[in-house]
């Protein structure tokens, strides 16, 4: 039976365009540091507001990646 261990890292991506982009930014950056990214759970979404307008969309993700300590 296949058994594997995943580690979880929590990241917040931000984008001036959308929550989807914010999530994409976070995953893109994470992919540079971690191998085998599989699932990301969205834990929180919010917006930054300045002068009555949204200046950034933020998406908080719990990303799991395969642990290679074996």
């Amino acid at each position, binding site marked *: 039976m296949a058994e594997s261990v995943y580690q979880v890292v*929590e*990241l917040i991506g931000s984008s001036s*365009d959308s929550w989807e*982009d914010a999530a994409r*930014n976070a995953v893109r950056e994470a992919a*540079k540091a*971690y191998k085998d990214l599989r699932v990301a759970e969205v834990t929180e979404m919010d917006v930054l507001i300045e*002068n009555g*307008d949204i*200046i950034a969309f933020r998406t908080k993700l719990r990303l799991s990646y395969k642990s290679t300590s074996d």
Partner: protein
Amino acid sequence: MSKLTDLRIRLVGTDASPRVGSLARPARPVLRPVLRTMFDVDVRGIENLPTTGPAILSPNHRSFFDSPLLMIMTPRPVVFLGKAEYMDSRKTKYLFPACGMVPIKRDARRASMAALDTAADLLNDGRLVGIYPEGTRSRDGLLHRGHSGVAHLALMTDAPIIPVGLTGTERVQPIGSAIPRPFQGPVTVTFGRPLNPTDYRFGGNRKRRQQMLDDAMASIAAMSSQTRSPDFSSSEPPLIRGGSETVYKVTRHGSSGPTWKHAAATAVGAAMSQFDDGRVGEVADLSLRILPSGEIRFVTEVTVSTRFLPETSSIH
């Protein structure tokens, strides 16, 4: 020998500061009729180009040929911002800047800021700057979603955006082709009506930026006759970006103490000794531990977000 060096420096500059546009100016009038004949180039809407002052040319992008075509066929000198990869090769190191490309020195993270600053400086100097709103060449022929950097730059510098529609360049030099192939025309270059930042006065920055970008993309689509795609043409971030696209890493730190407040302070202290840019802290969990002696210890877990840097995050 020294005269030769002198000439070289006059034409292409030095390693530290390659000259921008030195070859483009004398070459343009010579190359213009050559291009017209070899590629059957038709230029429309020249009246839409301001004769003086800054403007951002925003063309659709389907071919490597797009930049040289615009540099040669536009009545005024145009500069494009180029990725610094070109500057690593000896062959293109001097040639590209001399033809009007401004190299963006990039140390990875600062690149987009540097590109934005450089473009803003050029516009404040009253130059024509070419920026592809799609960020990179379209591989499927569709007109992809525009990046907001173009509009951000226009609103930042008060320079108008001139949408540009290019057709036929994808036949002259398709993606993957090393050199432009003659007699594959016709090629058309259409300059659209300028979009002035002063016409986008209402709403916040983001709304104005989006509105201006939407109008620019609609105008390009009408001129290039491309079908539009709601997606970006590449997942790579473009050289010129609109706003904040930072990624933060959230880390958890726990500590125990005689009170939750005390434990929180210790946990935050531990986090801060690890990171020098802790931003937002949040209490994630409060619990208590009962020691065998019956004494109670209060446990507080806090989260702290810090700038996420892939290059320094170890691979576990």
